[in-house]
């Protein structure tokens, strides 16, 4: 590892840019959305620059390291590998899509867009931080704008939903914080890389046991709880349908597209490297929860009447595949199994990105439909929309088929690789989980059937189709879905070296 103090670079810049944008937006009144769009585009450009400057060998690059509070082990330590950089790109894309979708914010738009940009800054900060203290600040910072965005601009039941979201996630964070304080007490370090090296060599467990007694499994549980709430993993998901449904759709895009990835990212960057051995010991329980997330998430989606709740549960189902992949690889492996681990981990990271894009796109379409109907979004409130709005139906159809994992679109590749990895490692989990693929297909096709097919009810005959600027906004996203479905190597090429490096540093 590079121990030199390096200066401020791209990673600080990308986190700072939305903060500056937020300040400007706050004082630019009705022009706030334009400011946010420019900032979002700038962030996307920066994230792509970072993506192209990754070290080819999968190591952490673009490192920035400055001593901060040395006595407490706190450093300003930033860096990204394929995983982190991919999450930056994803956050930037989803952020931009969300700003684009929010084209009808009438009540304090300056505050709204300032908060959205602040949330984006929180995401960038969390995906680049390599020191717990610093990371935790961003993890929490992203929560506050999200809370107010739901609370102030949400649906009729926004108050309880926002509170539930906030308190639930906070409770998870507290568990996380406690675990890390214990780790710090035992080791004197908060650095993710250092801690993962200690864990790899077995010194971490030794130090913790020596200082605190046999609490290592409990510390792991605390960390897992924090991420399990955020992702979510069943049964820690009950905040999610309410929050996703009550938040304005543009904010739901951020919640599901980017913030849920903070949870998965946390598993990969923090939980598995530092508590790999403990996770391996709890693997059976965790696998049961992951499979439940996949299957029950899909079934719960099938029971929903509200389109947003339906898609919320569908998101739970899709992130369940990530959980499944992560827990499946938590075994001491050798030979052929390493190939399976690599396939599953590549699949998990691809799935994070693909789900982010696709879920954000789906909520974008919901937001378009809601603007047009003026509110109702029950699955039975529609019918035959394909007739008055063929372009909307066609484009949303593509996003829905991407979500159900149609080959040729992005969603398939990640799920295929996850199953490729999981089946040899735990065939029962894989076999039960494929049920999720089936149920998801039924659910999403029911959406198409009820919303777009059948006779057109009288009140929808005049339903306006997407207009040109809306089409132009969505075409690049759908183009990306197709591109990644056909050439997934674009992402895997950069992620695979990171996957190999991570696997070689993890011990179970």
């Amino acid at each position, binding site marked *: 590892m590079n121990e030199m103090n390096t200066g401020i670079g791209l990673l600080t810049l990308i986190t700072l840019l939305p903060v500056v944008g937020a300040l400007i937006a706050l004082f630019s009144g009705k022009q706030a959305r334009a400011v946010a769009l420019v900032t979002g585009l700038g962030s996307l450009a920066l994230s792509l620059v970072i993506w192209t400057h990754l070290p080819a060998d999968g190591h952490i690059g673009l490192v920035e390291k400055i001593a901060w509070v040395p006595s407490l082990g706190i450093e300003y330590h930033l860096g990204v590998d394929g995983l982190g950089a991919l999450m930056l790109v994803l956050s930037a894309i989803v952020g931009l899509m969300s700003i684009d979708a929010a084209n009808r914010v009438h009540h304090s738009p300056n505050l709204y867009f300032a908060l959205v940009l602040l949330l984006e800054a929180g995401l960038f900060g969390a995906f680049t931080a390599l020191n717990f203290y610093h990371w935790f600040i961003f993890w929490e910072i992203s929560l506050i704008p999200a809370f*107010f965005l739901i609370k102030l601009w949400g649906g009729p039941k926004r108050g309880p939903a926002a509170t*539930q979201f906030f308190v639930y996630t906070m409770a998870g964070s507290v568990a996380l914080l406690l675990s890390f304080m214990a780790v710090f007490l035992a080791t004197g370090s908060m650095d993710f890389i250092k801690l993962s090296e200690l864990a790899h060599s077995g010194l971490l467990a030794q130090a913790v046991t020596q200082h605190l007694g046999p609490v290592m499994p409990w510390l792991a549980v605390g960390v897992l709880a924090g991420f399990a709430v955020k992702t979510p993993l069943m*049964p820690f998901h009950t905040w999610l349908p309410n929050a996703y449904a009550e938040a304005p759709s543009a904010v739901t895009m951020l919640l599901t597209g980017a913030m849920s990835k903070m949870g998965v990212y946390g598993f990969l960057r923090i939980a598995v490297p530092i508590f790999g051995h403990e996770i391996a010991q709890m693997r059976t329980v965790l696998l049961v929860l992951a499979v439940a997330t996949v299957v*029950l998430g899909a079934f*719960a989606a099938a029971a929903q009447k509200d389109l947003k709740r339906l898609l919320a549960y569908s998101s739970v189902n899709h992130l369940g595949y990530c959980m499944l992949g992560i827990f499946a690889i938590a075994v001491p492996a050798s030979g052929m199994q390493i190939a399976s681990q690599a396939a599953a981990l590549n699949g998990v990271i691809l799935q994070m990105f693909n789900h982010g894009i696709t879920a954000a796109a789906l909520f974008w379409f919901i937001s378009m439909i809601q603007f047009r109907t003026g509110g109702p979004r029950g699955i039975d409130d529609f019918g035959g929309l394909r007739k008055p709005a063929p372009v909307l139906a066609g484009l949303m159809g593509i996003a829905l*088929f991407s979500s159900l994992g149609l080959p040729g679109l992005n969603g398939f590749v990640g799920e295929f690789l996850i199953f490729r990895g999981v089946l040899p490692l735990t065939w029962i989990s894989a076999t039960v989980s494929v049920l999720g693929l089936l149920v998801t297909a039924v659910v999403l096709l029911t959406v198409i059937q009820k919303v777009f*097919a059948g006779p057109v009810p009288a009140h929808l005959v005049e339903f306006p189709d997407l207009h040109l600027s809306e089409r132009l906004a969505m075409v690049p996203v759908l183009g990306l879905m197709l591109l990644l479905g056909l050439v997934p190597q674009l992402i895997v090429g950069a992620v695979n070296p990171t996957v190999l490096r991570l696997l070689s540093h993890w011990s179970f």
Partner: protein
Amino acid sequence: MIQETALIFTPQTAASAITGNLWLIPALPIVASGIIALLKQKRRVPAAALAIGSLGISLLIAIAAFAHVLAGWMANHAVRETFNFSWIQVGTSSVDLGWVLDPLSAVMLVMVCFVGLLIFIYSVGYMAHDENFTRFFCFLSLFAGGMLGVVIANSILLLFMSWEIVGLTSYLLIGFWYHKPSAAAAAKKAFVTTRVGDIFFLLGIVWLFSSTGTLLFYSHGAGSLESLALSNLLTQHAGLGLSAATAIGLLIFAGAAGKSGQVPLHVWLPDAMEGPTPVSALIHAATMVAAGVYLIARVYPLMSAGSLAGGTTVALTVVTWVGAATAVFAALIAVAQNDIKRILAYSTVSQLGYMMAGLGLGGVAVGFFHLITHAFFKALLFMGAGSVIHGVHEEQDIRHMGGLNAKMKTTFVTYGIGMLALCGFPLVFSGFWSKDGILEAAHNGAIKGPFYMLAFGALLTAFYMTRQVSYVFFGNKRAHHEAHESPKVMTMPLAILAFFAIALSAIGTPAWPWFKSFLNNEAAPFEFAGFAEPGLASLMLLSSCIVLVGIGLGWMIYGNKQQDAHAKDALEKALGPIWTLLANRFYVDELYGVTVIALYKGLAILTDFFDRCVWGGIVALVAWVFGLCAKINRFLDETFINGGFDKGCEQLSTGGGILSNVESGRAQTYLRYLAVGMIVLVAILLWSARP
């Protein structure tokens, strides 16, 4: 007899220019489909021209590829050329795609392109008045591309991807008239039912990939269908006494059964008739539903792995029995249907059963020959049915037709040829020879059950087709409207297909089994001695008798009768409740309704209830306990701690208050409870960590 004298050809695997460019065959229609998607709905002529033109070029390339394989065959080379490449690099292994040119793919390519082209041309006439004409050709082209992708795939992943594209287009085309709720429901049913098979298929693919380390079928000795991988798979145990090869084979067969409408996944195919008739002809008769049969033919080395000389395997036995059961089951239902397209749909299900049984009993060539002949005469029958439906103004009930032979001469003659080919009328019709091959293989099998089932199915086939033709073309006129013959653009393709329904006989007789020899890479001598094989002549005689009896019975009961459109069917009177059972398709849909679908809905409601009440309840309980603890803490805090921490919380409140002045500050209260709880825990931790 013939096989023993056959010469086994030397393998030739070096890729030629034609193999390198084989991808163009599926790519052209897909690109055309993309361009058509961007056209305005009014641009009918360019849309049809693009679709027909691109498939026409694909057909030319396919013929060139076929000629290449044929040239190799004539020079005694077993052509199997592949072109493989790495799609993604995962870990240190590679996910490969690729395509293959061998006799199997060459024959299938020509068939799909040729039949597809005729159906495209026919569609110009059939869909002339549809407002979504352009979109129709967009979907049709995409379908052709996907189907051709299935055919050329040398990677089981590429095959699966194309397979799903085909499933998507089938979904889109069944639901083409989406304003009809029945069409939308049928489309969903088709996609979901085939996906049931597909998830097993996907598991099979993943298993095959992780066991053999490759997705390629053939790769210079390292492919999954080559001897090294197969012998490995045979030694791995999968539980229940099965080898991994058998288990994977059965999983793949589940996928094939979904696509090819085998029992118990056949329920979607009759409903798929909600789509426009050219779709039924192209997708649900000639090509897509045959993809399952093609898949089994493609992975045949896996299915037959481990069989001793002349023996069979568990996987092939399952294929045989499922096929034979489907053949009889669907033929029985077809007897009691009144919708012209549904009769043909059940007939397709039944014939697909024959193909599967043929694969299971007699090998690739036997099942595959029936696939090819069936594609021609069933496309012919569907397009003839479309012509009839068109002629009688969108009427589909055969009881409301009658006496059309005079009004629609071309349609009648060509339909008659298709019907006789499907029945397997002796000697001059291709269906006779391909079905006879299957019956012969069944007769030679160790267990005779499938033979009797298939023979009974043949009797039923001849019977229900005679019933249908009698109702439609003979007897008195019962239609509401005056019938008219369809335009040339629709009848010409019928004539061409009718020609092939007869002509294909030439390549599959025992005297010159060219087709079989070509597929098996053997020489094909012409010798009348082929007929002299022991037992063959008597078997041919038997199957001829079965067909003639079936047709005779049908004609006796239904032939040229003067009757009322609302009169009870003659058999309905005779059979009573059995007829009701058949007419209601053995109540399979109803059975699924009260079992699988009820289970699905029940689980959904249960999960939702669990989510709201149990998990939600636990959360509420925890929140309540937490609140209680916090109140106690607050009491302690106010009494003992005071000072600094309270100030911190107040600052947080004011900070948040700026943002939330319109709302209450309840979250700050929660935060405060949380923070207090945290401090207490940290204190405990520090205390326990003291040296």
